[in-house]
């Protein structure tokens, strides 16, 4: 039987058509004793079935809403269940389960409410040059718009305390949510810390990831939000 301890930390795994990698990722997470909440974002493949079979809690969006919306669904549900800490973890296999413990430890050690994974605090041998440049640009953009001095602004591996998760509005359904999370962290004035994590770039994770052109759409989304409210 599970003890009370792991259920106070939930790993939220947004997944959209991740049937090929999800089973392995969930297996590793459960193997380390984490309680996992999978948000199936309107997948057309076996994502939802694989998640349920792995023993995860599964919430399925009836239609595809985007990763930001999936994270919000997961965080909202987890907070309603009285969870103390949430971890966000991409389903495409680019993160290492071993890094989760480091994030959680950093929350405790630094008395922080946000622990953000960074792939630039240690060397990654598999990162393509174009991706590195794109992420560098995103870093400068973040310093300019939020004042947060981070080395990696678009890393899907993060840990929040309950208090931290509650300040995230996540109104950007699509990819702009990564910048939005940082803006909310800056606005909240709560403590954040960066933790080195390793990203495994595979052909699969690169094909599912963002392309350089998406950057323009993200900017447009963020601009529209400024006008909107």
């Amino acid at each position, binding site marked *: *039987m599970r003890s009370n301890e792991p259920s106070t930390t939930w790993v939220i795994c947004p997944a959209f058509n991740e049937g090929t990698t999800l089973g392995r990722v969930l297996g590793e997470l459960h193997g380390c004793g984490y309680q996992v909440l999978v948000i199936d974002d309107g997948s057309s493949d076996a994502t939802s079935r694989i998640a349920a079979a792995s023993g995860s809690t*599964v919430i399925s969006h009836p239609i595809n809403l985007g990763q930001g919306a999936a994270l919000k669904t997961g965080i*909202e549900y987890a907070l309603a*269940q009285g969870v103390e800490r949430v971890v966000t973890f991409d389903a495409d296999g680019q993160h290492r389960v071993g890094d989760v413990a480091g994030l959680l430890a950093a929350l405790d050690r630094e008395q922080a409410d946000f622990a953000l994974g960074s792939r630039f605090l240690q060397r990654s041998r598999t990162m393509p040059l174009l991706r590195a440049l794109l992420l560098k640009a995103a870093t400068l953009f973040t310093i300019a718009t939020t004042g947060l001095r981070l080395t990696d602004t678009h890393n899907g591996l993060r840990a929040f305390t309950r208090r931290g998760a509650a300040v995230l509005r996540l109104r950007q359904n699509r990819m702009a949510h990564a910048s939005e999370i940082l803006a909310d962290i800056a606005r909240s004035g709560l403590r954040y810390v960066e933790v080195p994590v390793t990203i495994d770039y595979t052909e699969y994770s690169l094909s599912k990831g963002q392309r350089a052109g998406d950057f323009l759409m993200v900017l447009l989304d963020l601009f529209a939000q400024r006008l909107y409210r």
Partner: protein
Amino acid sequence: MIAQAIFSLLLCGVLLYAWAEYRRSPAVASMSVVVSLAGLIFIWVPSLSTGVAEFVGIGRGVDLILYLWVCISLILLLNLHLKLRTQEERITKLARAIAIANTVVPSETVTTLSEVPGRQGASSRPAGAQTSPMRMDDQIV
């Protein structure tokens, strides 16, 4: 004369629309009234637009109307975009509420999870409003 009559009719239609729309959105309605009245004046007194254009330094009256038209279109486009965004947010809330109401909880953890207040058991459907994790008020309003 024929063109003037047709355009006047169209603009009168816009005026009627603005009148009907006034209660829903006074700003859009008053803007439509101003634009269509200006249009009516320009249709029946074409020389006036040339006068105004020369006054602001554009040259031909047609050019003035063209520029104004482009501006109005862009404003309408923006308005439409914002409306779509609002729509998307409402759909998101609705979809999220449906999704959370249908949460599938792994059966092996039922005993531990049922101790948590506000959580129903292994059932994938909410048993009742007070035990549902959906929290309808927070979600929809």
